[in-house]
């Protein structure tokens, strides 16, 4: 049994394409062409070239000596924070903008929560000279002002989502409505490993460069191509999908997914979907999502805007249900401490999303000689205000 998507886009019980008929032609066009386009030598060449010269890949695999010493195990950090724009998100937007060009689209839409995916999308649209519209919840626009400014600087139009709770899920709804209203010329760049098939698989493939590089880098450093554990934070799950990708079907690698517990999984203010979610449909796929017993999607909470999503990608829902992945929920406080610890032990300020992944070392025991790779998905510049307020620095 494989933990990859099957040809209909199912990971076990999860995935598929639960979309209104209005979206069918767009999604079907993408589904029927994405693999073929991705396999074209000219596509691969352009994608690899941009990842190297524009994004700055390969990103280093860094042995964190002081952090390892403190936690008495061997910790490597995959430095996605060193990607252009400051996070792994750009791996996917580069791939999708090239895809959009080959599909003949001349208008790009995207959703964003914290603004990282919005910035990564606005960046590649500027690079290609394509019109870009980013939907962002009105509440998020207020609390993520620096990223809104970056998107505007890059020439994108930021449209506030005024419906529902005015956060990421509503921005996603608005982007989907835009796509319904503009079915011919527009490509929707989804930022996470969610959405109707083929999005979760396509996004995972574009992010799979992360684990591809880890394989060769670890071979060089450890004489084997796989760690004992691969660790990533999971909101929708794109950085995790990329970090796990080449290890999904390797039983020697333990997969650890770190979710945001917010103020605690029992507190009513949490985003730990694997603990609190039930099977359902969100944004076009069958997966685990947080909802009322009546099937209304609820609003999650996390100090990290990037993990503040009520669902989880179908790959991860399947890793959870099958037991292949170990899921750990980390609170705001635990994450913030881990972020400060990495800053002061290694001189790297991580994004708060990533700090959740780093917090497992205080909360789970590893053996001295375990080799652990943590995907350092993003840098913390965008979160400085939150850190400073929290620690009263």
């Amino acid at each position: 049994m494989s933990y990859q998507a099957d040809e209909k886009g199912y990971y076990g019980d999860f995935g598929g394409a639960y979309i209104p008929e209005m979206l069918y032609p767009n999604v079907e066009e993408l589904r029927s062409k994405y693999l073929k386009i991705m396999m074209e030598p000219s596509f691969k060449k352009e994608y690899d070239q941009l990842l190297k010269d524009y994004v700055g890949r390969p990103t280093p695999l860094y042995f964190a000596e002081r952090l390892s010493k403190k936690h008495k195990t061997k910790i490597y950090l995959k430095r996605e924070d060193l990607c252009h724009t400051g996070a792994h998100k750009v791996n996917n937007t580069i791939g999708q903008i090239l895809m959009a060009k080959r599909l003949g689209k001349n208008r790009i839409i995207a959703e964003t929560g914290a603004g990282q995916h919005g910035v990564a999308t606005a960046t590649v649209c500027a690079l290609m000279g394509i019109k870009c519209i980013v939907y962002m919840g009105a509440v998020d626009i207020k609390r993520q002002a620096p990223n809104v400014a970056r998107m505007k600087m890059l020439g994108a139009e930021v449209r506030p989502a005024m419906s529902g709770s005015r956060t990421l899920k509503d921005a996603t709804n608005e982007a989907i409505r835009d796509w319904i209203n503009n079915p011919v010329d527009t490509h929707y760049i989804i930022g996470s490993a969610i959405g109707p098939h083929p999005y979760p698989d396509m996004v995972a493939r574009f992010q799979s460069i992360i684990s591809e590089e880890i394989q060769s880098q670890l071979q060089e450093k450890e004489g084997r191509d796989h760690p004992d554990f691969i660790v990533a934070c999971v909101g929708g799950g794109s950085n995790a999908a990329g970090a796990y990708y080449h290890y999904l079907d390797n039983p020697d690698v333990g997969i650890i997914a770190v979710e945001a517990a917010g103020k605690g999984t029992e507190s009513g203010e949490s985003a730990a979907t694997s603990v609190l979610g039930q099977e359902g449909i969100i944004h076009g796929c069958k997966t685990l999502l947080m909802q009322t017993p009546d099937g209304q999607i609820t609003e999650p909470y996390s100090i990290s805007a990037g993990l503040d999503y009520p669902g989880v990608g179908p790959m991860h829902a399947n890793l959870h249900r099958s037991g292949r992945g170990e899921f750990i929920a980390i609170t705001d406080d635990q994450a913030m401490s881990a972020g400060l610890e990495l800053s002061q032990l290694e001189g790297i300020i991580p994004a708060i999303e990533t700090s959740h992944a780093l917090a497992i070392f205080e909360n789970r025991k590893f053996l001295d000689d375990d080799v652990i790779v943590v995907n350092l998905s993003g840098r913390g510049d965008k979160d400085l205000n939150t850190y400073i307020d929290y620690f009263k620095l």
Partner: protein
Amino acid sequence: MNRIKQKLDEDKKLLSIYFTAGYPDTEDTVKIIQDLESNGVDMIEIGLPFSDPLADGPTIQDSSTKALEKGMTTAKLFEQLKNIRESVYIPLIIMGYFNPIMQYGVEAFCAKCQEIGIDGLIIPDLPVNEYHERYQETFEKYGLINVFLITPQTSEERIRFIDSVSDGFIYMVSSASVTGSTSGFGNIQKKYFDRIGAMQLKAPQIVGFGIKDKDTFHEATNTAKGAIIGSAFIKHLTEKGIDTIGDFVKTIR
């Protein structure tokens, strides 16, 4: 015989009205249905409110949000409708997104619909192939007609497939848009209506999205069997309340 099929056999253009259950107030559902029937409406779509209605424009979104805020639930709707067939004879269709139906339990939901006397379902985010593979047997077991959508972008091949699995009517979305678009119909729609009319489909078509007054109703039903009004009716309820439903219906025909 299913009430939808009987209605489709009548020699007239059908007026169908959509409203969101629990809007403007939780307990308005039954009165709205009764008034629509007594004013000559042919068929009713009862909207099951959902937190994230991604095929709907602002008017229906807003009615859903308000209905949910006031405490509307699937169970409450079924409770309100339990005696509806003592007073109402026209076809009743529940229109809702798939997630609340999944949480209720697809089979339990269908059984309840049959018990109450619901004739059909429209579930915009349950695509025809998923329905065909996973749910068709259950729907049919409880005598429910499932209605599929087509749009101006739907390929001829797919329209033929949808026609082949449609037992009642085809819901013909008038334009590439979410519900409640107000631009009226132009040449593109006329060509699309004519193109579908010329396909000689087995299932009659009822047009929805963008029908808001007498003109758009007549344009839409020139080739199609009927038309559905949603957002314009919700706007009427918002502005005029639930006591003048007859006035609204009279502006259409």
